[in-house]
């Protein structure tokens, strides 16, 4: 059984479990699945200043911090105890392309050439990690939700604005990955 779990999971096994998060949170306490809101709560706690967007009773949202702490623990457990040491499967076409940019490490899920503290102090690493992270935080809040709040929760609840948001996420991703990223990775 444990050996079975240790293999990388199929898309449908993960999809079912992730999808079940929606009714689990609703039934456990009327909570709406959405993760990027936590970034807003952090702002509300540490630096609300006089910004109305951050002035609300964040204490009512602490359940969401418990949820992300659970994600931290779950991913830690999965990485420590439920894993086999085989390299991550990567599409051959992608591997060939990344090789052009000097990215050859696929021993783990994030390539070491980009995701390391030494990379952080290069122009390429700074753009990928710091600018990329900034866009994730700015964009999700501007859109009013992320992949969980809009793509999964919103579309599950048949909300047209969530469909529009999800199409925009995907369009942005396609533009970045295919048209802009090659220039950044060349740096």
């Amino acid at each position, binding site marked *: 059984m444990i050996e079975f779990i240790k293999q990388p999971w199929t898309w449908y096994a993960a999809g079912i479990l992730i999808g079940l998060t929606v009714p689990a949170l609703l039934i456990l306490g009327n909570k709406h699945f959405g993760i990027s809101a936590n970034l807003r709560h952090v702002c509300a706690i540490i630096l609300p200043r006089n910004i109305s967007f951050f002035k609300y009773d964040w204490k009512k949202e602490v359940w969401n911090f418990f949820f992300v702490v659970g994600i931290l623990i*779950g991913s830690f457990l999965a990485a420590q105890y439920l894993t086999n040491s085989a390299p991550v499967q990567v599409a051959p076409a992608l591997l060939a392309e990344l090789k052009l940019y000097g990215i050859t490490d696929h021993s783990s899920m994030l390539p070491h050439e980009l995701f390391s503290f030494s990379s952080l102090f290069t122009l390429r690493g700074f753009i990928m990690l710091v600018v990329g992270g900034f866009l994730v935080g700015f964009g999700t809040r501007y859109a009013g939700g992320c992949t969980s709040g809009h793509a999964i929760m919103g579309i599950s609840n048949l*909300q047209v604005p969530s469909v529009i948001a999800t199409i925009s996420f995907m369009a942005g991703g396609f533009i970045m990955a295919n048209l802009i990223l090659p220039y950044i990775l060349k740096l």
Partner: protein
Amino acid sequence: MPEIINKKPISFSPSIADTDYEVRSLDTECINESHLRHKWYHNLKYAVVGILFGIAFTKAEVISWFRIQEMFRLQSFHMYGVIGTAIAIGMLSIALIKKFNVKTIYGEQIKFHNKKFNKGQVYGGLLFGFGWAMTGACPGPLFAQIGAGFGVVIVVLISAVGGTWTYGYFREKLPH
């Protein structure tokens, strides 16, 4: 906490409507929340859901930068399968909850909120898509990558908090 904040958690200037759909306190009945106030350990059940969710994320390689690159280059079906299945299960669950009027474990009515379109969903969505393709992470996997031992992602997370704060600061000047 001032009284006004308890009753109506956020009142933006009249020119700009509430566009955020993940923060429950913005649009729920905060007046009669008192009987739903629980001790802190009641929140542990959300941590349990988070643990299962985090395991699924990590084991299915949703947190893999490579998987996200494959998705945006149409080189693999994997991520489309994960997200598509999750939406199908979520949709079915919500339909069943509505049809059978399922209550929470505390007997409370489960509430849904309709979202209104605003341009932020397009502009913000595109910007988030850029960031997603760069970091290989939407906010959920960001936490899972840190848990899985990729320490440098803490920098990405701090930067994402900075991005969220910057949005809040310029919010009323941005087109919505």
